[in-house]
């Protein structure tokens, strides 16, 4: 039987096998490094989302802190808005005490913003309030806070987009499936809220 291999054939096989092993080794090292880099990038992007949400939370709290002042200054002048004021106070209490999840924050914010907007729009009917320096300052501060909240929201959405792109496109999608990373949801302004802001 011609199963005996010559010396040179054996050495060729050994050479091929060893280069295959070396190649495979490099491939493993390369994959490990690639995995590490992609994994780190995904985690950093996810943390960026948490960071951005933290900023939104801070701004929203500032706005909620402003609300008692606004309610106080309007109460004296606008007796007819009692119901709106009560609702705002209730929502504010909910916002402060409720769980700090993205979904909850969005929901409370969506409920309270149209009320605030309507309240400030109604102020047009009370000229003494319009002329009140203290109220005007509150109005300006609120407008500024709304812009800053909007800016924080935009940054949050930008971070979410970055993260979602990273875990849904190649090669990140491979790593993402290994660590079970789910896409995050955007901070979307409800259609109703968008419509009411026109009155501002």
């Amino acid at each position, binding site marked *: 039987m011609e199963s005996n291999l010559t010396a040179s054939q054996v050495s060729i096989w050994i050479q091929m096998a060893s280069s295959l092993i070396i190649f495979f080794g490099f491939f493993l090292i390369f994959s490990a490094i690639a995995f590490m880099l992609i994994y780190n990038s995904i985690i950093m992007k996810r943390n960026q989302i948490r960071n*951005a949400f933290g*900023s939104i939370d801070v701004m929203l709290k500032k706005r909620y802190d402003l609300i008692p002042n606004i309610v106080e200054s309007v109460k004296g002048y606008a007796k007819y808005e009692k119901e709106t004021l009560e609702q705002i106070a209730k929502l504010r209490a909910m916002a402060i005490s409720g769980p700090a999840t993205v979904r909850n924050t969005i929901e409370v914010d969506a409920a309270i913003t149209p009320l605030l907007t309507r309240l400030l729009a109604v102020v047009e009917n009370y000229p003494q309030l319009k002329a009140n320096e203290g109220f005007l*300052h509150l109005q*300006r*501060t609120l*407008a*500024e806070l709304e*812009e*800053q909240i*909007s*800016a*924080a929201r*935009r*940054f949050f*959405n*930008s971070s979410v987009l970055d993260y979602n792109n990273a875990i849904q496109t190649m090669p990140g999608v491979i790593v993402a499936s290994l660590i079970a990373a789910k896409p995050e949801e955007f901070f979307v302004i409800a259609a109703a809220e968008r419509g009411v802001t026109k009155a501002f």
Partner: protein
Amino acid sequence: MVDEARMQEMFQRLWPMLQEIEAERQQVKARMKKIIAGAFLMLILCAAVAGFYLFIAAVAIFVCTVFLYNAAGKDYVRNFKTKVMGPLVKAYDPHLEYQPQSGIYESEMMGSRIFLTHPNRYATEDLVSGAIGKTSVKFAEIRASRETGSGKNRRVEHIFNGLFFIADFNKDFKGTTLVLPDVAESTLGSFIGNMLQSSNFGRPQLVKLEDPEFEKRFVVYGDDQIEARYILSPSLMQRLLDCRKEIGKDVAFSFTKNKIYIAISGTGNLFEPPVWNGIDFRTFRRYFEDLELFAGIVDDLDLNERIWTKH
């Protein structure tokens, strides 16, 4: 867009002054013609006398001509600037002032953080300053460059040559946000362009915004991601784009120290009086248009809208 009615009205008002200056201009033009004719004559004489010395003579004549040229026109230029441009600016807005010899300090220009290189040659002139509505403004021409080495190794890096504009911004903020013309993204496409943008040393971190047209035109760097978005609201982004379209030249914006800085390069020598063409409605129109274009930035960017705490 030029306010035709206003321009007509100002032209009528300044007409007597324009006529005076026109008379001066014609004198200067006559003088210039004589200088050129004289120089030409000298050249011919030299050529007739000796060929070799012609070259040296030509150089000498050229130098003298330039010298005389400038001297002949100096008074005229000064008179034009004080008697025509001054009143024109004041008539455009009584709270504005024109000072031809003043300009913007180098420290202010560098303080905008738009430019990374410090100039060692700096010249500025034609300052318009004051207030438009509630916004205090100033703008002037700047020529800044950096010369290194000498003789054969002399290198000149042009840092900035154009109009520099500074105004109060209508929102308070703490850090710096830069909006620079985007070269990479428009030429190399978004992926590679983005990579190049984020590795730009010496700049604050890259800020990626939502408006695709804005992103194509400009690249934004900022100390704080949220503050950058607070300043660059969707409406301001649109206005900056429109501003860039109207000016038609490369524009860089900087938001720092509660002011907005705008660097418009390649505007040439503005508010310079004509020598060869007469001072008529057409040339007047050019000055008015230039002034309106730059002073109009305040309204174009809605800087007088003060609904936030800064008022």
